[in-house]
């Protein structure tokens, strides 16, 4: 079993063979991936060493101390947080080898083509169609033909930068909605892909609309079986919820740290009411941090030693939905508090210019931006209302809402 000492040795060997000062950034990242030090919990040969996920911090700390370049995770979050775990779980060996390395190094940016104008919370109602072209297969010798995809996707961050997309589309409209979906990897350079910026309430366009017209996808770019795309998508979505709000943060990390620093820096703006509310939010943020830490300890494979009921859970469960709920509520309340605290400065906004940022930083820019951007936290990656349903039904086991569309063919659903 790979332990911390072993990882330190491997990291030192990597640094010795590729001194960061004299090595091209991309060469270094590729070498790091090949040494199994990219994501240590991944299998050997795919950037990892099958080590406990918690030991990643050992490698990261050594590399940061040595001044090694990182893979700019803020720019490739969708690939790292959502596409990669799905490819690892459902991809063939060939697919994993083709996609994971350039995904991790950032050579290829990924985006996610899930939501549609008519399929938000009810994602399984999606209408983008994928139809088999029995006459033509891009890869000679392939059993089935290519897929031709037509439809419209929305809320796609990084689409304008992306080389690849994870895509869910309807392959069988004659069966109930959850059953007729398949999961693909879509080439964003295909001529049928059109990306248009979608400006949001912050003034910038972090997201895009994506129009798919006759996009050709080889069958070799399908993940999971035909008709089982919904199951594959669950892996992506569960990981997304952990990616939003599941990051390990120090005390006073994230939005509460910004608010606390404001409080310390601007004594002239303090009032008793704002003080009481800040303390309440500080407590809630600290408890949310501890709750996330506890969830991580439960999910850690090392939790098995000397503990009861701590079977390793490699995939985040519905409990991850709870963390995202808490994260969204706190981000909104704290950023609202901050605008109020800043008084006259809270009335100003830094810049409404339409821009297309490369990534997103929830605590970036100024208070007004943070307040507005946080509104998205309870919508993106599953609305808080849907997440409450998930917790109620899958964690608490409460009976489901009556679902009138469950056994009806998708094509017969009212739209």
């Amino acid at each position: 079993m790979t332990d911390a000492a072993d990882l330190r040795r491997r990291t030192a060997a990597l640094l010795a063979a590729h001194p960061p000062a004299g090595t091209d950034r991309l060469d270094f990242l590729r070498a790091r991936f090949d040494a199994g030090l990219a994501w240590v919990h991944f299998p050997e040969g795919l950037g990892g060493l099958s080590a406990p996920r918690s030991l990643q911090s050992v490698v990261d700390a050594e590399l940061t101390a040595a001044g090694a370049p990182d893979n700019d995770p803020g720019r490739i979050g969708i690939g790292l947080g959502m596409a990669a775990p799905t490819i690892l779980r459902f991809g063939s060996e060939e697919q994993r080898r083709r996609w994971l390395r350039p995904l991790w190094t950032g050579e290829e940016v990924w985006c996610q083509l899930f939501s549609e104008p008519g399929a938000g919370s009810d994602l399984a109602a999606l209408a983008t169609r994928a139809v088999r072209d029995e006459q033509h297969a891009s890869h000679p010798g392939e059993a089935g033909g290519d897929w031709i995809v037509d439809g419209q996707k929305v809320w796609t961050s990084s689409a304008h930068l992306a080389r690849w997309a994870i895509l869910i589309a309807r392959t069988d409209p004659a069966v109930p909605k959850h059953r007729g979906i398949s999961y693909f990897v879509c080439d964003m350079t295909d001529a049928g892909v059109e990306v248009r910026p979608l400006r949001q309430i912050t003034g910038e366009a972090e997201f895009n609309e994506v129009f798919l017209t006759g996009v050709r996808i080889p069958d070799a770019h399908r993940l999971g079986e035909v008709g089982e795309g919904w199951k594959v998508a669950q892996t992506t979505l569960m990981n997304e919820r952990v990616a939003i709000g599941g990051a390990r943060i120090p005390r006073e990390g994230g939005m509460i740290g910004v608010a606390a620093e404001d409080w310390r820096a601007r004594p002239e703006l303090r009032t008793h009411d704002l003080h009481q509310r800040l303390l309440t939010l500080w407590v809630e943020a600290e408890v949310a941090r501890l709750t996330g830490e506890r969830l991580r300890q439960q999910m850690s494979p090392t939790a098995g030693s000397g503990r009861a009921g701590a079977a390793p859970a490699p995939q985040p469960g519905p409990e991850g939905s709870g963390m995202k709920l808490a994260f969204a509520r706190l981000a909104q309340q704290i950023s609202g508090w901050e605008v109020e605290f800043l008084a006259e400065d809270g009335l100003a906004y830094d810049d409404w210019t339409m821009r297309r940022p490369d990534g997103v930083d929830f605590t970036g820019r100024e208070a007004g931006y943070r307040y507005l951007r946080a509104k998205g936290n309870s919508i993106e990656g599953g609305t808080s209302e849907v997440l409450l349903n998930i917790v109620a039904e899958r964690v608490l086991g409460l009976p489901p809402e009556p679902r009138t569309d469950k056994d009806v063919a998708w094509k017969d659903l009212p739209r």
Partner: protein
Amino acid sequence: MTDATPRPGAPAPDPDLLYSEDEEALRAAVRSLLADRCAPATVLAGLESGSAHDTGLWRALATDIGTAGLLVPEKLGGHGASAREAAVVLEELGRSVAPVPYLTSAVIAVTALLGCGDGAEVTGPLAALAAGRTIGVLALPLPTAPGAPPDLAVRAAADGTLTGRVTSVADAASAELLLVPAEGPDGPALYAVAAAAEGVRTETVTPLDLTRPLGHLAFDGARGRLLATGDRARAAVERALLTGAGLLASEQLGVAEWCLAETVRHTAGRTQFGRPVGSFQALKHRMAALWLEVASARAAARYAADALAADSPDAPVAVAVAQAYCGPVTVRAAEECVQLHGGLGMTWEHPAHLFLKRAKSDELALGSPGRHRNALGPLVGIDAP
């Protein structure tokens, strides 16, 4: 901003927020005892009998299972465990609103004695408490919070006689040994007084929470044995209050857990409008939100217990956070339990009211959430205007 502005201290680097196998085994033993001896109907019937606490249950819990000695080192007659194990016991006692003096005697009084050195006047009573032979309480009002020296209502004369009146002391009527913080001739001091001694009078109070009886203690020339003076006495009392407040969070967690589980069970089975009422979003969202709060309360309570067990410098922050958070969550869980049971929740027969009364009383015990938030401010560098 000046350089002197305090910053939040670092949390303990690697807190263990889970439960060990030993802790789970202890939980199983306590839960099994409580399932046999402390079902809600039994608790209700016992309260109407007028006894201060369930003496048979206390003996089984404190002596037979040995939980009274968890915080006491083995060489002093205890089991040499830690706040983590005592917290697990309190979770279970909370889930049963058990009417036993565990928090007051086995946690607070024991911790106060442990801070008084190893003289015979200390080790004798400590061994009796650890064995569950004697019930002891710290004679301070139940709402007294850690973090500031309590107002001392008792005066000690040079000859060790005590005079004064302490109100709203939890489990006062059950206690045989009173640990009395008093203002002595040379400053604060801590005395041991036998509850049966001459000059001690206990007035019982009708408490909001019948499962944790309260009494006023009047001292009129009662003879006390000096346990500690000055800084040692002050530190012993502070540590006892801090430990009590931190572990109260685990009791609160247990109360909240029961309320949530019972509410889910009831609403999943209760049919109205042709559907289980728990299938309506208006209700299930409330229970899901509560689940998240209870899960969060568990992390907060576990961190407080772990910080106390490790004697971490972050313990005052951990305890203030746990108390500021867990009190209101538990009250909400109990209030939701009553509301989502509909008319049934309003009856004396259904046990929900026992949990509501305990939750509300626990919210005030050892410092209200607001007091703990205010104590937290200077600890983490968020000073008042």
